[in-house]
């Protein structure tokens, strides 16, 4: 016989979970399932409405379409170019900031600014900074003698990608630097002292003490940054609208265009599902690795 007290205790955690789970069910779970259903249909928004079940036809058409394949490539290029550079720069900045003892809040305040600015503003700001005749980027590069004539940054596929990557890296510096800085501060001084006693120089200490200790943080940063970068819509949309010649049309922009400009809701849903599956696979992979690390660290 289960006592009422016992039952109550069993159910308590569920009470605590209820509000959050309810919201998540409405905002996330139901839409995902609905999206899945819609991706298997051809939805007619106008012309009388209704929809036809088409099975995997949307997926087939999508995977075969040049535009979608191109946007996958663009997403990959965007993320793979931004992330390593941002990580390296972030690590460098974190190392620098680690040496600052006095007035650190002031420096951190400056550091946080790119994060506090809305992506919309960031987008417009960088769009005009990269303008071919009025932009400051060309102005500075010309002044420094690094280029001979104005580069039409946003008008050429490669330079447009470079421009959005630069803007993206700028925007991610605060998050990456702060996380790595905290990671650095978590490394106990004894480890460094021990290494120094063993005769290791600065570079060796960095390689054998700092980096391994930062593995977990770098992993977390890597995972979240990747997800946020792949998902990003606003920055690129405002800077280039996906152009020129679809060079910067990453997958979220393609989803938007298919669903909201071409009003092909079924195909848009399918594209979104593909993106979701990709990100889930990535996260599962990462979480596995991270958990294994943690278990190893615990056992150590």
């Amino acid at each position, binding site marked *: 016989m289960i006592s009422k007290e016992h039952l109550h205790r069993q159910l308590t955690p569920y009470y605590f979970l209820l509000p959050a789970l309810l919201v998540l069910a409405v905002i996330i779970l139901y839409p995902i399932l609905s999206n899945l259903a819609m991706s298997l249909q051809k939805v007619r928004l106008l012309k009388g409405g209704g929809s036809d079940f088409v099975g995997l036809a949307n997926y087939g058409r999508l995977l075969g379409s040049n535009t979608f394949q191109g946007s996958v490539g663009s997403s990959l290029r965007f993320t793979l170019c931004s992330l390593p550079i941002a990580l390296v720069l972030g690590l460098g900045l974190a190392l620098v900031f680690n040496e600052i003892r006095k007035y650190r809040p002031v420096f951190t305040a400056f550091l946080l600014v790119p994060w506090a600015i809305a992506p919309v503003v960031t987008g417009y700001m960088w769009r005009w900074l990269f303008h071919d005749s009025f932009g400051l980027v060309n102005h500075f590069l010309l002044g420094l003698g690094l280029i001979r004539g104005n580069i039409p940054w946003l008008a050429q596929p490669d330079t447009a990608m470079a421009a959005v990557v630069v803007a993206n890296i700028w925007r991610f510096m605060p998050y990456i630097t702060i996380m790595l800085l*905290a990671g650095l501060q978590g490394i106990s001084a004894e480890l460094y002292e021990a290494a120094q006693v063993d005769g290791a120089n600065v570079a060796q200490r960095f390689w054998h003490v700092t980096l391994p200790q930062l593995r977990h943080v770098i992993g977390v940063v890597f995972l979240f940054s990747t997800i946020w970068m792949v998902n990003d819509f606003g920055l690129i949309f405002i800077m280039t609208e996906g152009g020129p010649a679809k060079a910067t049309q990453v997958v979220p922009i393609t989803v938007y265009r298919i669903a909201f400009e071409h009003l092909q809701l079924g195909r848009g849903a399918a594209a979104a599902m593909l993106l979701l599956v990709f990100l889930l696979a990535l*996260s599962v992979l990462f979480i596995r690795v991270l958990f294994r690390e943690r278990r190893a660290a615990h056992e150590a």
Partner: protein
Amino acid sequence: MKHRTHARVRAWLGYGLGSLSALCLVLPLVWVVTTSLRPIAEVTSTPPIVFPQSITFDAYADLWEAAPFLNYFANSIAISLLTALIALGFSVSAAYAFARFRFRGHGLLLMLVVMSQMLPGSSILIPLFQVIRGLGLLDTRTGMVLIYTGFAIPFCTWLLNGYFRAIPEELEQAALIDGCSRLQLLWRIVLPLAAPAVVAVGTFAFLLSWNEFLFAFVFTKSKALTIPVGLRAAFLGQYVNKYDQLFAASLIFSLPPIALFVSLQRYFVQGLTAGAVKE
């Protein structure tokens, strides 16, 4: 001796490079500030004039007429504050459940909650539109708060969960034995101890809704328009591109998040990283 000069060199390098990089990070913004302070004719001059030749505050004065900007501001503040509060409340509650209880489905539910933040916004945009429309919440503040709360909960729960787990249970055990209820426990003991994480979570939720563009763009038309969308609509109309006013408005709009960050910096950073690093 060598050790001390070594340390001094490091310190100088640190401050020097630190200042340089801080400046570099803020430099693009300097351009935004100067553009907002000069007449538009100067903005489009070639070669670009870095320092404004004539400073005018016209943009700051005129922008209020361009759109019901005050409305957008009010909307953004209301929506962001409410999102922060409600997301905080729900996340604290859920995170506490994950951290302190063992129950059926614990692992699975936690993983699902954490995975939810990896969602591409584009994948739920359309079905969510139909849900919100079905609830009659299109273009309402309530609708936006609901949506943003849903977005914030996964990350907030995950962060708080990590933080709660790091807090030793003994205090709570003692209080429980004394007859304290779980809720009082949460309120009186756990939350004060977890203050940094609470601040981080609240700030995160606030910022998420303050800066969000895509969903605000699709889900609001006029009544619940927030600033990111309003910026675009008001200053970049079909043939009107008032960049000076746009940037002036953007700067004003960036002040709340910057103020929030700067004042709560210490807690925010501590809360954000402790949850991730101490795992």
